[in-house]
């Protein structure tokens, strides 16, 4: 047996393993830090919370949502201003500088939970469909918009009770997903 030769092969083999391990660690770290932090989930949750705060305080729906007995149909046009939202800020994000946010608010009466009695939306409607894609949590769908659905009950001036559903969506894939 040539012991010296075997030792050399062994140490070479050891260094090959070291190089493979190092390569693996470099690749993993590069992959981890190379991908941006995805904060869209948190952002869409904050948006939903803000919308909820804007609709009702202490469980009572803001009086601006009603004109006498009916819903104020024009609230959708003024909602962004009322809630201090500015969606027109993402210059350079996405194709054609499109707006990266969307929300939809639906009011249901307790008698009719299938169809909303009143609803309105704001932002870029193109993002809404991303929320209904099956299997959207898979890796291959990571560039789809992130959605948050929030629902709560509130009263109209202490009388009628409504179920309010809020859907908030944040696009911004260019800043949050590895391209």
């Amino acid at each position, binding site marked *: 047996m040539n012991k010296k030769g075997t030792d050399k092969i062994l*140490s070479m083999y050891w260094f090959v393993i070291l190089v493979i391990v190092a390569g693996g660690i470099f690749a993993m*770290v590069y992959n981890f*830090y190379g991908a941006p*932090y995805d904060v869209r989930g948190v952002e869409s949750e904050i948006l939903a919370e803000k919308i909820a705060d804007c609709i009702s305080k202490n469980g009572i729906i803001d009086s601006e949502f009603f004109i006498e007995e009916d819903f104020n149909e024009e609230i959708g046009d003024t909602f962004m201003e009322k809630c201090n939202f*500015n969606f027109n800020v993402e210059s350079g994000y996405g194709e054609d500088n499109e707006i990266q946010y969307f929300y939809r608010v639906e009011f249901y009466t307790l008698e009719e939970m299938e169809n909303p009695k009143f609803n309105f939306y704001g932002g870029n409607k193109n993002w809404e469909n991303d929320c209904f894609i099956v299997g959207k949590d898979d890796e291959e769908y990571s560039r789809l918009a992130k959605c948050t659905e929030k629902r709560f009950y509130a009263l109209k001036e202490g009388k009628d009770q409504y179920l309010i559903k809020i859907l908030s969506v944040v696009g911004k894939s260019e800043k949050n997903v590895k391209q």
Partner: protein
Amino acid sequence: MKKKGAILIENVVFIILNILFLAVLILFLVKQGSGAIVLEQSYSKQIALLIDSAKPVMLLKIDMEKGKKLAEKNGIDFNDVVNINGNIVKVKLSEKGGYEYAFFNDIEATAYPDTDDKNGYIYVITITKKEIKNE
């Protein structure tokens, strides 16, 4: 005797090489985690999200100790690290770098550097209601 000495030197060299290899690996990991690109992104996104959830008259204080050290190392004045222009937060920790992230909350936000009670470096973000401009 001669053979035993040779084995010892071989082992010592082998151990030193292994330690060197591990040290380089750890250094690489630490450097990657505290690099300007990673910190710029994390600070700007953190600040944007904080502003999004804030309400007028709030005062937000952000610990920027790591950012201050890195900015100093890269020759960036700490006063210029965080900039809020309109609805966009920009954090710059290196000469060529800089990361922007937008927030949707339509308020007036301003940022200035300060120190906390323990003399740690922080940034203070003030949130005020946007003034309506009469044309």
